[in-house]
């Protein structure tokens, strides 16, 4: 018994390591990108068809965990490309000095200007509260605070959507943000560590709405044929999340990494993003967006802070949020 267990263990522990001849391009990303239902498998297949290489994903938790892992490894990292940091992590990522310019000149279709030489967007989305279509909706934070609608949000100290919401309120209300949070306190059922828990609580009926993305209803519409979820359109505008990739400066496969960065914004990748990552592609696919995306909320105003402003503002905004909601 013990012997056969050890045999199985040996098999499973050491199964990686074959195929030493073909060059390996190692890409660090977050879990849901590399998942079999995410964009990962399609991206891997398409790139391997043109690169003559073996593309390997290494996935760790969410974007914040991804950056923490790269920071832990420092210059010794095996990663050639890091894919899936969001705008609010870019300043921290830049400060590590681990990343190199991408050199890609493809024109992007973002609602805001983006000309970062190092961090290349591959998809983006708007944060929004998502609720049920047959329930009351509100169209601003003030209206939400005045209502008795209950929402669940993510913690800005442990989740990127949570931090996005915080900066959204700060960008719209500035010095009044603390007051808005105090007014919102009785509307917030609870604060969860991450998006997964928050969305699960909403689906289980614990709240009327959840902080998610304007594209969330498209998932239910396309994958589940369920039109019962809607995103609330806020008159004040919607804060954006831009997801970026970057080439690791110390990569041992610079040519492959460059090739991959250009490939990332090509139609082969961009056309699979909407229905696998449920975000807007950074470059609109030749065939256009899927049907389910056409009816989504289109914010009149796109809000976003520059990575440096976001990094500078976050600590004080988190403390303001904590103080206002802890009362």
């Amino acid at each position: 018994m013990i012997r056969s267990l050890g045999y199985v263990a040996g098999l499973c522990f050491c199964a990686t390591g074959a195929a030493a001849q073909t060059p390996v391009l190692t890409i660090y990303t977050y879990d849901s990108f590399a998942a079999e239902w995410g964009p990962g498998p399609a991206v891997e297949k398409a790139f391997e068809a043109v690169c003559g290489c073996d593309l390997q994903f290494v996935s760790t938790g969410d974007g914040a965990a991804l950056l923490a892992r790269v920071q832990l490894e420092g210059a010794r990292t095996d990663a050639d490309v890091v894919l899936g940091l969001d705008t609010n992590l870019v300043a921290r990522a830049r400060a590590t000095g681990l990343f190199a310019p991408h050199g890609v000149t493809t024109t992007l279709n973002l609602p805001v200007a983006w000309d970062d030489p190092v961090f290349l967007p591959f998809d983006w989305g708007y944060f929004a509260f998502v609720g049920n279509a047959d329930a009351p909706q509100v169209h601003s934070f003030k209206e939400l605070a005045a209502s008795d609608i209950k929402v669940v949000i993510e913690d800005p100290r442990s989740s990127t959507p949570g931090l996005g919401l915080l900066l959204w309120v700060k960008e719209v209300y500035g010095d009044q943000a603390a007051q808005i949070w105090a007014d919102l306190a009785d509307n917030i059922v609870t604060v969860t560590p991450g998006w997964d828990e928050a969305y699960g609580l909403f689906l289980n009926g614990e709240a009327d709405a959840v902080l998610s993305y304007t594209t969330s209803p498209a998932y239910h519409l396309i994958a589940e044929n369920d039109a019962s979820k809607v995103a609330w359109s806020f008159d004040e505008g919607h804060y954006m999340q831009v997801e970026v990739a970057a080439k690791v400066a110390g990569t041992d496969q610079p040519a492959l990494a460059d090739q991959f960065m250009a490939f990332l914004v090509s139609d082969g990748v961009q056309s699979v993003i909407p229905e696998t990552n449920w975000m807007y592609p950074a470059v609109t696919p030749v065939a256009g967006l899927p049907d389910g995306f056409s009816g989504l909320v289109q914010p009149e105003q796109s809000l976003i802070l520059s990575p440096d402003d976001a990094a500078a503002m976050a600590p004080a905004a988190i403390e303001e949020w904590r103080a206002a909601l802890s009362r």
Partner: protein
Amino acid sequence: MRGWPGAVAAAAVAVLLFGPLLAVMARGGSMPGLTSADWAAVRFTVSQALVSAVFSLGLAVPVARALARQRFKGRGLLVTLLGAPFILPVIVAVFGLLAVFGRGGVVNNLLAAVGLPTLSIYGFWGVVLGHVFFNMPLATRFLLQGWLAIPAERFRLAESLRLPVFRVLEWPMLRSVGPGVFMVVFALCLTSFAVALTLGGGPGATTVELAIYQAMRFDFDLGKAAVLSLVQVGLTGMAAAAAGVLTVPEGFGAGLDRTVPRWGRSSRGLDVIVIALAALFLILPLGAVVVRGLSGLTGLPASVGWAALRSLMVALLAAGLTVALALPMALRSRGRWIGLLPLALSPLVLGTGVFLIAQPLVNPTRLALPVTVVLNALLCLPFAIRVLGPAVDGIEAGYGRLATSVGLTGWGRLRVLLLPRLRRQIGFVAGLAAALSMGDLGVITLFAGQDHATLPLVMYRLMGSYRTEAASGAALLLLALSLALFWVFDRGGRVDVDA
């Protein structure tokens, strides 16, 4: 017993624990002080842990007593189910709990049906309720072990002499076992993070563990994470010291290794009510997990099968390693406290430390599963020592002198005297370790690559990409496999013990 293997095991555990912590400290460089927000987190952490531990233990005493006194159909199943909340991934158990106590849960539906105002679970008492759900069943299992360890002969004697059983037998047992159980539950609640935040209703319910998570993931301030980790170690250490002072060793003497079939027939009614309430508190949320999971079982991706196999392997190896570490440490009374330390250390800090140590030498992704096995065995050690330690002491107190006088030492003593009498405890420990490692989400997330996903990780990944139904299916599979493992080991330990 001299016990050099115990000393070796204790030394290995100390290195495995403090090595990673030191690695995190060294990498962090400076050691920043605590902010007012951190102190608020410390205050909340300690107060909720104290209240949670008081309620968990207070409720576990009558439940364990009733279960020790009564024999009924399904008792074995209920005792096995007691392990369930504890071994579920936190978020699954929280969803189960909310199906009963949440906004649209059973309780609020009943209240609304009879025209009463509904209750909100979120807040301080929600955190306590969550922790009681996790820890009361565990405390019950520990106390039940205590009751079953009282020799049957003592009960018979007490009854025939018409002595108050509670005062002469049960209270001394509680004084000997209770403080340790209280300490374990308190320590578990100290390092809680997702339950506290999710059920706490807002940032007021911030625990030290969340602050560690933030320092690690969002600020990448390893020095801060190390400082907060030391705060946790200090708090757990104080709790352990207090438990040590409050513990009064029992002196029942030895019996013929038989458990008592039943005593105190007069108060059956009260026992039945207590057991029924505990069973409802346990079964309703678990039932919700099962019901939700059934529809998701068919939509599970193929990778779930491999992930389940990987998880089973991790669980079996971790169970073996836990027993291998805990048994020698339990045989030696000095240095046992080291085995309780893993309770205090954040798995995130531990994992990060191992990562820092391993990474210059080998690709950490390759180590994903071995590290998960070792760290989970380490994290199970406190429970194992808590169960095995007092049992060894009891056996040594009862038979030790006789065994020594006939020259029974070393391996022979272990084989003839100790192992046969520790079978029930070893089975329980192995079952708990296997089930706990099966549900691990703390250690594996840091190391796992594309090909090393375990079942809980796949469940979490499904949840993180809108696939709630499939995630519920995976959760049900996890619950079933963990419970089956737990049952097999626990059962194996109890086979013909009553003969």
